[in-house]
């Protein structure tokens, strides 16, 4: 019975030790690596539609969306 308790305590100590090592000691290193990572989503362009002689029946163009980042802009005048 006592042996089981000792083994469990030992296991718990190892787990806590690894956690400390992972988060506290190596923490900044992982955070830096995560900061370099970005989720890239590549969206494909829709195919065009042609008639039998190659005339374009449907194609792609773009509308625009205008955004601004006021917190990051350097000149407060508009």
């Amino acid at each position, binding site marked *: 019975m006592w042996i089981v308790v000792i083994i469990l305590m030992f296991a718990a100590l190892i787990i806590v030790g690894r956690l400390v090592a992972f988060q506290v000691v190596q923490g900044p290193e992982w955070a830096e*690596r995560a900061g370099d990572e*970005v989720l890239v989503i*590549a969206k494909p362009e829709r195919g065009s539609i042609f*008639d039998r002689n190659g*005339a374009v*029946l449907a194609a792609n163009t773009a509308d625009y969306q205008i*955004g601004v980042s006021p917190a990051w802009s350097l000149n407060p005048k508009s």
Partner: protein
Amino acid sequence: MQQSRYEILGVLQSDQSFALLSGRVSAEVADLVRALPYDGLQIDPLPRRFYPQNEMLCHSLGYVDFDGNGGSGVEGYYQRELAGEAASAVVNISPLTSQQSVIAHEGADLVLTIDRSLQYVVEEHLRQALQEYRAVSGSIIVMNPKTGAILAMASAPCYAPAEFYETDPSLLLNPAVSQQHEPGSVMKLITMAAALILAW
């Protein structure tokens, strides 16, 4: 842009890290905005479908909504092939590691058996016929009897696929293929065929 200067000024002076100044604007407005002396404006393209033939072949082509999903016509039927597949991955952008490229499966182009010039002529005839007989609607289909290829398919009333959001949904169905009609004289072919088979 249709917004009060006061509103825009308020946003510009705020502390937000990002704010949208407008919804979809056309390319001309975007060019005008790009020419403004204020830097720090982000002008992002939003893809949009356009139809150089305007209303021609509206029913067969269908339309594409602002999310890129096709509806009705071949835009809807071949949605999966036309749209391709997006690819996403978490990629490390630090210059010290090798760069990974995220490649999406491009959308396929679609070639129809429709002949544009023939379609134009057919639509003209349909328009004149509707006027002459004061009809509400009509359809003309031109088909190559040997291959079954559809050379022209015109139905009226039509709509502009580029303005799908303003369209009455009852117009979106292609009457030539999706509506039920009484056979009329076409039935004679079937009775004739039946008679020939029985007499053989």
